[in-house]
């Protein structure tokens, strides 16, 4: 399985792995001096760099950079492991950017671009994974440079993924599918059936939360797969024990755009059913904290440690997105469940510190889609019709959210034609 290698090889590997540290000696500067140089920014010529595109396929990463400044291609080449083709001139209006396409063996190496940019600050540092459509190359994941890292560079305008018909050709040279270039991304949706295996979750009179969650999840997956442009994955497809952080890792490793964790609620006693949806955030509510503790049961995270993390996360973009997603799902779900059982209460969307939502790179929610504390509802849950209905309610919520956030895509096959007809 593993090759047996020698010390020399190990040293070489360490060295190679650290190639990204190439050539900074001349430009050594402290954080303080960087700050001061920003202050008299009139002397500094910031570069404009647009667009940056990074795409990855298998073990190969293609980075396409459009540099709006004069730059020695030689220097750029030196820093790269495997340059596919060097500078190529093309014209877009008044300016004449140089386009570099470079190949890397893995993503981290793409950060090699950093030292060659003239402001001496690493630029390509964080990558935000997105997905490419399966046009010619099946599920080739792509990556955009995260805008966040540019924040502290004044006068640094990054038009992220603004691809125009003019520069398309240059970019297409890198073999990146057209749809991606114009922002028609496939969305990767990860569905996470709560609990499983040794962990049954909530236990009703005759059903387990883990089984309902798995069944509804599968139905939801099948429904979402009927759409164009969604890649749908499940954290578990059988009744197996799975740690919460493994679920998170799975979603992150697959560059999920959305994460939906499906659960069934329980409160002691025969009660009215209620629906609620959670996104990650701090809570003062002791009941919610209790529920979180229950759902976090199988985690490897210490609760105390995360209280701190929760506060730090604050009102980030991700949590805003998650909140919107939670809202769309909760609204649809409750509306429909209320039709089935007039007694179903709407407990709304809530912030809660669920471990499973914490480590996600993507917006994520935890939906308590039904309630085992109501006898009638428990009976209904035993029928496949009801579980299918719940899946369809979730589907609507998710699609509503996705359509709000992407102009294109997310049309169900067949519906698209209908729509086209209607517009004629």
């Amino acid at each position, binding site marked *: *399985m*593993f090759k047996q290698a020698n010390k020399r090889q190990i040293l070489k590997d360490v060295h190679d*792995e*650290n190639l990204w*540290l190439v050539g900074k000696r001349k430009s050594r500067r402290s954080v303080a001096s960087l700050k001061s140089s920003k202050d008299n920014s009139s002397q500094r010529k910031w570069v404009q760099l647009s667009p940056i595109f990074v795409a990855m396929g298998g073990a190969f990463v293609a980075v396409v950079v459009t540099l709006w400044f004069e730059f020695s291609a030689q220097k750029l080449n030196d820093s790269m492991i495997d340059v596919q083709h060097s500078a190529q001139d093309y014209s877009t209006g008044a300016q004449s950017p140089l386009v570099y396409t470079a190949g890397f063996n893995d993503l981290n190496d793409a*950060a090699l671009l950093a030292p060659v940019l003239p402001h001496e600050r690493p630029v390509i540092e964080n990558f935000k994974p997105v997905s490419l459509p399966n046009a010619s190359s099946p599920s080739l994941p792509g990556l955009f440079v995260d805008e966040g890292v540019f924040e502290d560079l004044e006068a640094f305008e990054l038009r992220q993924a603004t691809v125009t018909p003019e520069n398309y050709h240059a970019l297409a040279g890198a073999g990146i599918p057209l749809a991606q270039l114009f922002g028609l991304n496939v969305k990767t949706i990860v569905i996470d059936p709560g609990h499983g295996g040794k962990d049954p979750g909530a236990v009703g009179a005759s059903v387990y939360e883990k089984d309902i969650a798995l069944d509804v999840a599968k139905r939801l997956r099948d429904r979402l797969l009927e759409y164009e442009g969604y890649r749908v994955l499940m954290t578990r497809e059988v009744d197996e024990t799975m740690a919460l952080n493994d679920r998170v890792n799975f979603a992150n490793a697959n560059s999920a755009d959305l994460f939906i964790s499906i659960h069934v609620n329980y409160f002691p006693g025969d009660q009215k059913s209620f629906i609620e949806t959670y996104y990650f955030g701090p809570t003062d509510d002791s009941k919610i904290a209790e529920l979180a503790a229950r759902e976090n049961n199988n985690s*490897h995270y*210490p609760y105390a440690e995360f209280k701190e993390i929760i506060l730090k996360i604050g009102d980030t973009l991700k949590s805003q997105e998650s909140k919107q997603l939670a809202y769309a799902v909760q609204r649809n779900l409750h509306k429909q469940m209320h039709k089935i059982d007039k007694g179903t209460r709407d407990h709304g969307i809530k912030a809660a510190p669920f471990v499973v939502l914490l480590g996600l790179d993507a917006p994520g929610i935890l939906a308590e889609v039904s309630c085992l504390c109501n006898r009638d509802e428990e009976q209904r849950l035993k029928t496949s019709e009801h579980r299918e209905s719940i899946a369809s309610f979730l589907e609507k919520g998710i699609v509503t959210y996705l359509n709000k956030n992407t102009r294109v895509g997310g049309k169900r096959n067949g519906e698209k034609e209908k729509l086209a007809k209607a517009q004629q």
Partner: protein
Amino acid sequence: MAKKKSSPKRSSKLRVGIDLGTSRSAISASNGKRKFVESYVGWPKDFISEKVLGKSVLFGQEALDNRLSLELCRPLEHGVIKEGTSRDEEAVNQLISHLIELAEIQEGQEIYSVVGVPAESLRANKLAIKRAVEDYVDSLMVVSEPFAAAYGRGVLNNAIVIDIGAGTVDFCIMHGSMPTDDDQRTLVTAGDYIDEHLYAMLKEKYPESDFNLNMVRKFKEEHSYIGKTKGKIEVEIPVGGKIMVHDITEEMGRACESILPAVLEHTMELIARFDPEYQGLVRQNIILAGGGSQIKGLDKAIEASLKEDGLCKVSVVDDPIFASADGALALAKDMPDDYWQNMLDE
């Protein structure tokens, strides 16, 4: 400060190994110096505090002792540098400068460094680490802490290193080549987690007693154990101003044990990644590093739990504070000269 200037004559080369840890950072240099500092950096909150303290930046225990007049930062708290917050980056930068100073490196010496960082940080923070270190060294390579520890011990093949630190437990398997991402795992249930857990249990048992997390950590560092312990563990804690003896035997055992299941789970999973032919060897070669490896009985507890599947041997590094820094230094020393030259841009 030890900030490097463009010095006229480069007389000699110095190799250094640095372990940038969540709770402690250490340096081990080829001039024989070995130093460590708690990974805390504090800046005086205001001009008055600065006057009182007489310093513009404080480190380690000294920073902790003066925490009230400081803006205190523990930059690698969760095993990664929180980027974007320049405070954290600045703190790492200062920490490195402090370590270099502690190692009494002479002006004009060319410094080739290998820096060990938590595995997670290696994944997430390469460039931040580079920015923090590059001001003080001439050449730099970054590796994961457990790998550095393994290299230092000379175990390059068929082994698992488990580095139990404050913020993270880092696993690393050695199979004769440089470990990749896939060969490493990180858990966040580590030393700090034990502290929190113990603290919570003791608060419940002794609600009237007056103690804090720091005291609990000290109790742990003195009395930690898993399995059986001889006699009672008793500590002194004030209650309403009076010092009283408290029995914390059971709580100590339970808190220390709490990290065990996850450690076992990952260890077994990692053993299974080896070719079956070598798994027996790997089981004989499980190495505990980091401060948490000092928990009494931890090695035996792991052995006992794993022996169902066959014999195994767990050993503990001799000097957990310096294991990674020494390993990083060993790497730096073994690294051929031309590898370093490659990194200079002339």
